[in-house]
Each structure stands twice: as structure tokens, then as C-alpha cells.
């Protein structure tokens, strides 16, 4: 090798940055289509009668959730890991050929599995369990990708120069372990292809079909233990990892209290897993588990706010940066939305509130103020911070970023406010009785009343998508039309006018 100083190698990070943007566009576009289908059902035939099977709401809905969770968010997690991991461990991917190979393998297998998942969901091959819709062949692929990610992560940790692990690395490790455990246990299933009939026939039916190891109430219990914590370890833990690195780095401020960050970590790890029961209130799972789910959801406010307040206090004395830098705006609003949705969630987990909120659009609203306001904002902010450093070019346009921020913020506000109203309206109408004790409304009355809110929600989602396209364009122009800088850009993100 020529005599060059050692540098961080962002090859893999760049690859995952591209899939973050690509899957983000796909997932959000499908989301916007779904939103408008609810307001204007004619859109179920958006590609004509012949393709109705593939464009109708119910077939597209799992594609939307999975594209956003496993496409957009996971890509963002991988992209930031391959960036942050090297830097806080002070070791370059270029130092180990093995790790480079693993990283590339990780990326390509991931892309293949995502492609297979998209194909199968369009075809209607699904187990019906939310965020675990994939049939067993794809589950096997997911496990392989995850193991390679783990090897790649612990491999990098193994050759580190920094003795202690930075708090972000703790969160990345927890992401890896949490998802591994949850995914495995929730997807326990028996392939049906290998059974033999009394007549001696074997290899019957579709080879990819399987049946869940758990039945009924038990299945529900495991599924929501998974479903709730897939949110924990996909939408909270790795995003906290991002903000603990990118906010201090971008603002140049040390974390307000490193000790508090350590405490919140252990608190979150211990408490989060218990809260899954709040998805099953008033169902047929044992009562004590429902109560436990409620209580722990309330306790969960503490560690969540521990992290969020720590982040906001990091900006102490530096609030002028929020006005000056659109990138800091994204992060500060992101942590504010995190506080907001981690307060909203426990409120919805209170049994009497849940009686109204469950099965309504309020839950959908809650998910989206978390994912649009917190996850989406943080991933985009992270990529904006990384782009100048990995491409060695300044960000294309600061004013475009600022415009994007305001458009998307407006989108999120329209989204959750309309869903609050829709959810509470419908919840109250379902339970309304007239003076004789009869139900006051037929079901369809409670649907038609939602039309204006569904339309507003669609507009909110569309604004967010427009902002995301501005983000994609900004990154694309950064990559292609900015002059290359001599060396890696330092400290706060440089901004073109």
C-alpha cells in the first residue's frame, strides 16, 4: 500500500445510506397511497381493475409497515453503525479485510432478503402477524443477515483502540440482542411441506407455508411481546444511539450528563420488555399481565425522559444553534417528539383510556408521531451529518434543508392532530348509547364521520413525503455537484448558502 495516513472507511455506510433513502421513498409513498385510499376508496383501483388485487389497501398495508421498519429504519441503523462504530471505537474498517468482506456480504444479503420480502408480500404470502409477516424461508434469510451484522459489529469492537464502549455502542449492542431474541421467538413455526399423509404422500402444498407454534391467546401474547418490543429495539434503542452521537458531535457540546445516559440505558433495558401487555388490555390474556403491562408502561416514562432530557440539556447555553442550524432543529424537534410520544404511549396504556383508544386511529396517530417526528427526523439528521464527511463535500443547500424541516413539521402536526380527533371521535361513538340503552350509532356511521380527518391525514403524510424527496434530492446534489474537499470535514456540518 502507498504511504497514506489511515482513514475511516465509509464504503459500507455509503451503501446503506442509499438504501435508507430508497426504501424510505418506497415505504412513505405506499403510506401516502394507503392514507388516501381510506379517504377516497376509489384509489384502491389506482392501477385499474386487473391489478386491483395488488393495489388494494389490505395487500399494501403490511408492505408499508415493513418497508418503513425493515427497509428505511434498519438501513438507517446499519448506515449509522458503520459510521459511528468506527469513529467511537477509533478503528477503521480498512484495517481488516475480513470486516470489509463481512460488511459487503451484510449489505448484499440484506438487499436480497428485502427484495424477497417485497415480492412475497405482494403475492399475499404472509403469516398475518404484524411486523413478522414473512414466511419461514425469508425468516431464515433474516436470521443469516442478522448473524452477519452481529459478527461484523463484534468484530469491529474486537479490534478497537478505545477501551470503554461509548454509550451509543451500548445501544447498538442492545438493538442487536433485542431484535435477535424477539424475532426468533415470535417466528417459531413449523413448515407444513414436510409432513406425510396417512396415504404416504409427502411434499404437500406450498413449500413456503408454515403454521405458528403458538395458538390463540398464547400466540397473541408472544406476538405483542414482539410487536411492542420491535418498536423498542427498532424505533427507540438504535435511534437513541444515533442522537447520543450525532447531537453532541453536531453541536460541539459534551453530553449533559454521561452518568444519566448510563442509568437511562439500564432502566430502559429492564422496563421496556414488560410493557408489551398494554396491547392486549381487555383481551383474553391473564389479567395480571394486562395490569403489569399498564404499570410498566407508566414506569417507562422515567428512562425515556431520562434520555430525552439529557439530550435537550446538552444544548444548554447553546440554544442559538437551534435557530442557526436546520440540522440541530431536526435533532431537537426529534427529541421533543420522543418525549411527547413516550408520554402519549403510557397514557394510552392506562386501562380506561385504552378502552376508548384501542382499535382506533389514535393508535395510528401515536405510532406516526413517534416514527415521523422522532425516527424519521433523527435518521435524516444523521444522514445530513454524515453526508459531508463520507462524501467529502459540503451539503448542497441549507435553505432547502430549512424548507424541508418546516414542511415536514407541518406534515407531522396535521397527521397526529387529525388522528387524535378521528380516534377519540370513533371510540366515543362506538360506545354511545341512546336513552333506551340501545347503541346510538351503527358501525358505518362511525366510519363516514372520519372522512375529513382521513383527508387531512393524507395531506399531512403527503407533505412529509415531499420533504423526504427534498432530502433525497439534497443528498443527491451533495454527492454529485459539490466540489470535493481536500480532507474530511471537521466539527459542525459546513453549510452552503
Amino acid at each position, binding site marked *: 500500500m502507498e504511504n497514506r495516513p489511515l482513514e475511516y472507511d465509509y464504503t459500507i455506510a455509503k451503501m446503506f445510506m442509499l438504501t435508507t433513502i430508497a426504501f424510505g421513498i418506497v415505504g412513505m409513498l405506499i403510506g401516502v397511497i394507503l392514507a388516501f385510499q381510506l379517504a377516497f376508496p376509489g384509489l384502491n383501483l389506482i392501477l385499474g381493475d386487473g391489478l386491483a388485487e395488488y393495489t388494494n389497501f*389490505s395487500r399494501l398495508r403490511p408492505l408499508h409497515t415493513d418497508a418503513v421498519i425493515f427497509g428505511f429504519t434498519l438501513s438507517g441503523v446499519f448506515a449509522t453503525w458503520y459510521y459511528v462504530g468506527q469513529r467511537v471505537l477509533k478503528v477503521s474498517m480498512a484495517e481488516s479485510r475480513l470486516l470489509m468482506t463481512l460488511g459487503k456480504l451484510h449489505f448484499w444479503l440484506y438487499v436480497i432478503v428485502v427484495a424477497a420480502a417485497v415480492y412475497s408480500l405482494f403475492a399475499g404470502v404472509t403469516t398475518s402477524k404484524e411486523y413478522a409477516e414473512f414466511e419461514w424461508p425469508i425468516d431464515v434469510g433474516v436470521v443469516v443477515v442478522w448473524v452477519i451484522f452481529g459478527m461484523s459489529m463484534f468484530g469491529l469492537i474486537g479490534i478497537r483502540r478505545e477501551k470503554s464502549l461509548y454509550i451509543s455502542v451500548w445501544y447498538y449492542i442492545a438493538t442487536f440482542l433485542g431484535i435477535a431474541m424477539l424475532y426468533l421467538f415470535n417466528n417459531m413455526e413449523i413448515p407444513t411441506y414436510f409432513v406425510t399423509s396417512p396415504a404416504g404422500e409427502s411434499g404437500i*402444498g406450498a413449500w413456503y*407455508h408454515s403454521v405458528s407454534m403458538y395458538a390463540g391467546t398464547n400466540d397473541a401474547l408472544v406476538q405483542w411481546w414482539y410487536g411492542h418490543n420491535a418498536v423498542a429495539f427498532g424505533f427507540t434503542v438504535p435511534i437513541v444511539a444515533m442522537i447520543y452521537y450525532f447531537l453532541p458531535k453536531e453541536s460541539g457540546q459534551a453530553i449533559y450528563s454521561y452518568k444519566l445516559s448510563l442509568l437511562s440505558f439500564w432502566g430502559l433495558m429492564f422496563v421496556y420488555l414488560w410493557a408489551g401487555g398494554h396491547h392486549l388490555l381487555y383481551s383474553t390474556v391473564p389479567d395480571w399481565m394486562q395490569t403489569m403491562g399498564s404499570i410498566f408502561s407508566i414506569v417507562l416514562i422515567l428512562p425515556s425522559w431520562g434520555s430525552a432530557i439529557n439530550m435537550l440539556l446538552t444544548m444548554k447555553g447553546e440554544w442559538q444553534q437551534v435557530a442557526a442550524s436546520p440540522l440541530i432543529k431536526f435533532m431537537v424537534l426529534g427529541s421533543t417528539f420522543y418525549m411527547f410520544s413516550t408520554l402519549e404511549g403510557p397514557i394510552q396504556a392506562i386501562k380506561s383510556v385504552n378502552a376508548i383508544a384501542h382499535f382506533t386511529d389514535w393508535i395510528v396517530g401515536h405510532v406516526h408521531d413517534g416514527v415521523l417526528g422522532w425516527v424519521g427526523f433523527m435518521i435524516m439528521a444523521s444522514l445530513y451529518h454524515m453526508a459531508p464527511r463520507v462524501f467529502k463535500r459540503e451539503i448542497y443547500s441549507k435553505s432547502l434543508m430549512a424548507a424541508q424541516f418546516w414542511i415536514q413539521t407541518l406534515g407531522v402536526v396535521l397527521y397526529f392532530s387529525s388522528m387524535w380527533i378521528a380516534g377519540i371521535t370513533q371510540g366515543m361513538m362506538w360506545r354511545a348509547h341512546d336513552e333506551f340503552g340501545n347503541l346510538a350509532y351503527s358501525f358505518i356511521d362511525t366510519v363516514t364521520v372520519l372522512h375529513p380527518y382521513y383527508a387531512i391525514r393524507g395531506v399531512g403524510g403527503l407533505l412529509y413525503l415531499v420533504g423526504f424527496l427534498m432530502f433525497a434530492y439534497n443528498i443527491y446534489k451533495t454527492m454529485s455537484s459539490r466540489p470535493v474537499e481536500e480532507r474530511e470535514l471537521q466539527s459542525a456540518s459546513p453549510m452552503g448558502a
Partner: protein
Amino acid sequence: MFHWLEKHPFFFAVGVFIAIAFAGLIEILPNFAQASRPVIGTAPYSTLELAGRHVYIKNSCNACHSQLIRPFKSETDRYGHYSLSGEYAYDRPFLWGSKRTGPDLMRVGNYRTTDWHENHMKDPQSVVPGSIMPAYKWLFTNSADIDTVYAEQLTVAKHFAVPYNQDVPMKDGSVQNVKMASSIAEARSLALEEAKVVAADMKDQDVKDAVARGEIPEIVALIAYMNSLK
């Protein structure tokens, strides 16, 4: 002890794992010992009903319809008796859903007919004005996959002791015996027998012709499943 953990990634990972596995260990695993026992009156799904369940899952009906009636007056007034754990004993996977964009379907068989479903699936707005449900016309032309259903029946009978070909007690004191075939050919003919009963109440001539030819359109299976939800 703590700072030691922070510098030893392996043991750190073990510590994190213990903290997160703890809830599952205490909360979920022990409950499996008392696996869902069926209540009286709950029978396994017949071949055609299970095929209909597959159609239900394939089209993600559970994205908009729940199958869980909560113990509130407003829900029991609207949908019938609240759900009991044992009623789900043969549900693999469970289909409770998480969002009621449309009404609950746990006991839809009690108050909707074959005829109603047929019209509704073809053109929901003609039956329920103002409905935002899309039409499911392809169910009338696609054929149900009976072989996969049969493989699933064999699997659950073998691994989970689902009582096919056994007498199951009903609420009125009678017994019901749900048949499972002993070969693929028999499974297909069992399903077809059931399909003929459903198709007799339907109006769509193409569907009737298909069943007469020995095919089973998805809609027939789905309606058989809907009618079994009681």
C-alpha cells in the same frame, strides 16, 4: 463491577441479555404450561373453513377487522358475547387484529349470510352505503389452495394434537366430528362437498359453474370461514 462490564463487550452483552430476557422468562414462558384449552363448543376448522382462513390471511383482512370482542356493554351489544380464551384454541395464528377500520368479525357467522357476503365482496357500497372497503372481485376467479390446507391440518394434528376425526363436545350436549382426509385426493373431495353447500346459496353463475366443474373459488372458501365464525 459496573465499569468492568463497560469494558468487556461480551459480558456486557450477557448482562443486557439477562435484563431484556427477564420479562419474557417470568411473564410469557410459564403461561405456556397452561396452554389454551378449548371451551365446549369449539371445534377444529374443517378443510374448506381453513382454506377460507388462508384466504382471509392472504388478503390481510386482519389489517382492518378485529376478531376480539372486549367485555363492554357497547361491544357485546354490537358483536355478541365477549371473547373467551378457549375459543381461540385452534387459531394458528391468532387473528385479533389491532385496528377496527371495519367492524369486528369474531361472531359474524351469527348475523350475516352467504348471500350477504357474496354481494358485499363484489361491491361493498351496494350493501353498506358509505363503506370504504374495497371490492374483492379476484376472490371470484382465483382458486383456493386445498393442498396447502391439508398439509397444515396434518401438521397441527401431528404436532399439536388438534382433534380431527374425534368427537368434540358441543354446547347443546351433542358431539361433532370434524373430518380430516387420509390422502390429498380425499381432502380435495371433502372440501368440494363443503363448497357445494355454500355455492348452492350463491347467485354468481361463474362460481356455481366452477364448483360444478370441481374447482373451488376463493370466495366460496372465505364465505365458509365467515359462516363458521360464531
